[in-house]
């Protein structure tokens, strides 16, 4: 295995593209080093992207955020305005691992590692986030939802990597939330994750809503029926019951030692309902 440090986006792309064997980007290493140690990955080349300005910084321009793919969760939580503008996106990223893991774990790594249970992904999809992908052929913008293709696999081509994650300008009277269920209080993998993003009209009624579930399908999934059930309502009990029913129907979970498929389906509804209510209260200025 060779280890290289890239100083520029183009430099990283040409190192990755030039490798004949297996090449991996290194961001926080909280997945990659575990997989290296376990022999699950055997890269010929590892490229550290943390010395590239663009991957390491959070910037804001006219309300839209550009978050470097290698920015650590702890750095997102410390940002002056990101957590208040995008509480759901930030709480998803901050749920990853322990304090120690937070010091390193990035959203870029969480997304590209492509675990179905990745905690930062549902809220990014609900936010309509895109990522800027850099590769030997240049730069392209891709919806976050289109990066993971299944457990452990992503849609990036040879030599491509994610440089930044981009949040659009937040709509007026909108907010978001992310909740997950883990069998323990801390340090576990989600058996269900649920993100909600709602936008209110001038009269306080929901005019747009997105609900996204994690850990209940090979990738995070948007549940359009759940979002539709909220539109035109004030997240009252009937609307929330419809959200829960839509999510239970859409969830296609597996059974494993953390929870049975039936339990995960049930929890999908409960969490989606709660996340929708939190996002609604935040958007109404009541939270």
């Amino acid at each position, binding site marked *: 295995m060779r*280890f290289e440090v890239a100083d520029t986006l183009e430099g990283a792309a040409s190192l990755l593209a030039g490798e004949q064997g297996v090449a991996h980007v290194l961001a926080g290493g*909280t997945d990659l080093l575990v997989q*290296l140690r376990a022999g699950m990955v055997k890269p010929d080349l590892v490229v550290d992207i943390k010395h590239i300005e663009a991957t390491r910084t959070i910037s804001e321009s006219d309300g839209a955020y550009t978050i470097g793919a290698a920015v650590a969760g702890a750095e997102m939580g410390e940002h002056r305005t990101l957590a208040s503008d995008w509480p759901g996106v930030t709480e998803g990223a901050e749920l990853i*691992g*322990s304090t*120690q893991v937070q*010091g*390193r774990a990035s959203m870029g790594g969480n997304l590209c590692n492509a675990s179905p249970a990745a905690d930062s992904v549902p809220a990014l999809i609900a936010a309509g986030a895109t990522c800027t992908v850099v590769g030997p052929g240049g730069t392209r913008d891709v919806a976050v939802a289109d990066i993971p293709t299944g457990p452990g696999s992503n849609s990036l081509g040879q030599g491509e990597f994610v440089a930044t994650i981009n949040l659009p300008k937040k709509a007026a009277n909108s907010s978001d939330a992310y909740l997950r269920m883990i069998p323990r209080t*801390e340090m576990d993998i989600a058996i269900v994750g649920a993100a909600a993003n709602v936008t209110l009209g001038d009269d306080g009624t929901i005019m747009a809503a997105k609900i996204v579930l994690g850990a209940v399908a090979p990738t995070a999934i948007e549940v359009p029926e759940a979002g539709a059930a909220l539109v035109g309502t004030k997240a009252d009990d009937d609307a929330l019951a419809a959200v829960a029913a839509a999510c239970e129907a859409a969830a296609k979970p597996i059974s494993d030692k953390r929870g049975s498929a039936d339990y995960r389906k049930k929890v999908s509804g409960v969490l989606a309902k709660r996340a929708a209510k939190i996002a609604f209260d935040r958007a109404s200025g009541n939270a």
Partner: protein
Amino acid sequence: MSKIHVSTTVNGDPVEFLCEPQQTLLDVLRDELQLTGSKEGCASGDCGACSIELDGRLVCSCLVLGAEAEGRDVETVESIAVGDTLHPVQAKILEHGALQCGYCTPGFVVAAKALLDRNPDPTETEVRYWLAGNLCRCTGYDKIVGAVLDAASEMRGETS
């Protein structure tokens, strides 16, 4: 395969070492630099026995490559006592008997000091969440949490 030459700062001193590309910073600290305070409990980020500060941020040294230390600032448990004077976190762990085998202790010391550097007056809940990535198989945690809270109040100048 040629080794990588790394220049870094460890506990305030300039240090140079050679490492394999896949060698972790934990292995470098222990095997190349003979700083054996940091322990390997799991090598997978779960136990916190290998906790260090990297550029002032608490991380697991088992999840950092040695080569990544180039130009960075590494602080290990060995830097925490000043000469023979223990840091309050260390002194209170002793006073409270907050260890049995002691394998987890260096990690707890580094992590707890990092907390008190940022938050001099944490609640018990904040201490427990901050230390959730440090596992102890012996004590049952209560004494450790008590020692950290007691160290915090001593550092704030309150009598305990």
